[in-house]
């Protein structure tokens, strides 16, 4: 859907392309990707999956602005223009080492929200997080998402069905929590993150 690069202070969000198949396939097989849905089983399958992304979603590669290094991925899917909502998904930092000391995750999510609420004029962004992924639930709550419910035995992770916590943020709530994103990014700049 979105073909433009979205720019931040530390990171840019670059539209996912077929050339990213090998890298994203590698990331999706990391242990830290265990909370994402089961992905492709080969690079060729990953290429086909990328090529088949529908217009109702936008997938990005998170790239460090200064070095151009690709460090993760993030998506806005199920974009519903009529009901003005969309789902944030496939959020994964693949290169943990490269992002230490840099507000990469916070800025990537802020760019996604800015795109959703200001560019697409959506009313709400929601997401599903595995109930066992406590640190992501904590992170999203701190940055403005609210718990909206629980989908019981909803996600198959490591061969076991797990509950999914449904979280969401409304556009007006984002206007309040945006300050926290700005401060985290501002502190990153102050601390000399690169």
């Amino acid at each position, binding site marked *: 859907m979105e073909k433009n690069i979205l720019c931040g202070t530390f990171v840019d969000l670059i539209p996912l392309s077929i050339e990213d198949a090998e890298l994203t396939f590698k990331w999706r097989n990391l242990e830290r990707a265990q909370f994402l849905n089961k992905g492709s089983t080969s690079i060729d399958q990953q290429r086909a999956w990328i090529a088949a992304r529908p217009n109702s979603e936008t997938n990005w590669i998170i790239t460090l602005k200064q070095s151009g290094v690709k460090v993760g991925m993030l998506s806005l899917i199920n974009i519903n223009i009529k009901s003005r909502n969309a789902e944030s998904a496939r959020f994964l930092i693949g290169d943990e080492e490269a992002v*230490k*000391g840099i507000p990469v*995750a916070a800025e990537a999510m802020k760019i996604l929200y800015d795109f959703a609420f200001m560019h697409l004029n959506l009313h709400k962004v929601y997401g599903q997080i595995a109930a066992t992924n406590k*640190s992501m639930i904590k992170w999203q709550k701190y940055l403005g998402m609210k718990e909206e419910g629980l989908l019981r035995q909803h996600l198959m992770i490591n061969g076991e069905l797990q509950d999914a916590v449904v979280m969401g943020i409304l556009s007006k709530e984002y206007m309040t929590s945006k*300050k*926290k994103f700005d*401060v*985290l990014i501002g502190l*990153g700049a102050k601390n000399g*993150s690169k």
Partner: protein
Amino acid sequence: MDRSEVLKIIYEALDLVLEGEEYELNERFVLFGNGAIIDSLDLVSVIVDVESEIGDIADKAIALTDDQALSQEVSPFDSVKNLADYIMILIMEE
């Protein structure tokens, strides 16, 4: 609440996110920026835990990510020392 209690809370929050890493916690430990070994996901986790624990023990809500933090001459997240000093300032404020 004294500074040593604040340090203990910061160290406990860091211990949680540093599981599996090799590290030495002291007041020079870098939280954010060059030389840091945690990322912004971990940093937010530390902030949440520290804000919550200080709020409970000192019976006072503190916010570590607001304009006041950003306007400090030395960033509170440069090091554990600066964060502890900054929290002491917030606790002492009327």
